[in-house]
């Protein structure tokens, strides 16, 4: 009776207290978030004004702006540091960069294909009485030791240049296979099979003739390891394929020999549509 009633009132009071606390907390959180938003908006507006002013000043003077206030020596040196770092970054774009170390030099070979920069590899050289490769990140299927034996002691530039050729060609072949897999997967049956050096590619793709599709089997061999175009192209069709497809196969074979894989596919995709 009374006791149960008291319990119930206690429980209600407790519930109400908990709810009130929750609401207080929510209100506090909301207030905090609102304040933070205001703070950030103010900061953002100030920055925007600063940037606009800076751009207007630059437009007026048209180019190099002389500092209105005398810069500190530290500011000047920090500018120079940033400027030198930017210059070193430009060297990356040439495909070769490096840094002097206590024991020699650490070179970096930056690869690219069709204006797109791809992987970088490093080569840490120790120079004492002879030049030694201390550490490197060259993949194992690149004939590094062979090249080093031939050129490293007598002509470092040549060594780096030839190594760079190998790496760039490998990366270029791999890029083509990846692009083909990514952008023409509807025409390729299965996957593009390749070895680690990406100088042997095997795949099947669909060719249509008179509203029927026939599979072409392609084997590409890149005999020149410094080249990203194949030296040998073998295209074969199934025995039930019409004779006219032999011409298509020959045409495709020629294309594969002359241009990048994904470009060849783009070419005959658009030719088919026309």
């Amino acid at each position, binding site marked *: 009776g009374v006791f149960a009633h008291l319990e119930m009132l206690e429980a209600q009071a407790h519930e109400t207290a908990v709810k009130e606390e929750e609401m207080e907390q929510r209100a506090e959180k909301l207030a905090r978030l609102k304040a933070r938003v205001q703070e950030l*908006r103010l900061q953002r507006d100030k920055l925007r004004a600063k940037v606009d002013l800076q751009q207007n000043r630059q437009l007026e003077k048209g180019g190099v702006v002389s500092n209105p206030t005398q810069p500190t020596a530290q500011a000047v040196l920090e500018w120079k540091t940033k*400027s*030198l770092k930017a210059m070193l970054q430009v060297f990356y774009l040439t495909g070769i960069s*490096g840094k002097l170390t206590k024991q020699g030099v650490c070179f970096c070979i930056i690869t690219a294909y069709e*204006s797109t920069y791809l992987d970088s590899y490093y080569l840490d050289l120790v120079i004492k009485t002879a030049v030694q490769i201390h550490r490197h990140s060259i993949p194992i299927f690149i004939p590094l030791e062979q090249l080093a034996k031939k050129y490293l002691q007598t002509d470092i530039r040549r060594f780096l240049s030839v190594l760079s050729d190998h790496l*760039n060609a490998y990366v270029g072949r791999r890029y083509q296979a990846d692009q083909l897999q990514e952008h023409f997967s509807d025409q390729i049956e299965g996957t593009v099979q390749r070895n680690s050096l990406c100088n042997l590619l095997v795949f099947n793709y669909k060719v249509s003739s008179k509203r029927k599709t026939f599979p072409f089997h392609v084997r590409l061999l890149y005999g020149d390891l410094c080249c*990203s175009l194949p030296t040998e192209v073998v295209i074969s069709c199934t025995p039930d394929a019409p004779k006219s497809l032999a011409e298509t196969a020959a045409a495709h074979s020629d294309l594969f020999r002359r241009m990048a894989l994904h470009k060849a596919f783009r070419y005959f995709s658009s030719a088919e549509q026309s």
Partner: protein
Amino acid sequence: MDNSIFQVYEDEIQSLEEEITLLAEKYEDSQQETTFFSDKEILMSIKSFQREFLGESEGHESSSNLKALLESLETDLSFLMKFTGIQFTSHSKKTVEKTRNRTVRKHRLSGNCHSLSFQLEFQLLEMQNKDNVAAVVTDLSIAMEFGEDSDLSKFVSRSFSSYAQWRKHRRCTFLHFKNRSWTEHNISSQSIKHLLCQSSTIKKKKSDNLQMLIFPPVFPFVLTSSINNMDLI
């Protein structure tokens, strides 16, 4: 009670923080790109910087760090220029676009490679992927001066006009030649204007005297093989 109101504020906070970071970077980039100090001013700053911190013990460390960093960068740069034979004489850049995932900058470079001087302009697009940064060069334009070295200019023109006949193809480079002082009549009659290399950078040893080295995918250079190997020790 719904928490969506919190989400709205939290989203705005995140977007504002990103915007602030971008604006700050834009400001810094612009300051850097439009300022210029001569070597003389740099030298004077180094001296006054050292004087400022000579007394203080904590300051001294940071000053020597900045100076050490500067020296190390200069040494590396000077080494690279000597090693590759590429001397950059000026570099200016302008940030054209900057968003969270994309930065586009216009670069203007001038320099020389042994006796061959060049000027390059290009756009560099950098995109932030999930694991790395992808970089692509577009709108490349190269201007080269051959001066009186007619052998060199003949060779380069022959090379570029006959590249199509070459069987070795590697990377793709977009070359647009704008040249001011072609010295040989051969060159002007060939009118090398617009070469779109479907294949790659060209490396070929043609004559005994000349070896052409092209670094992908931006710079074509000609090195004479009479240049001695640099002493690296």
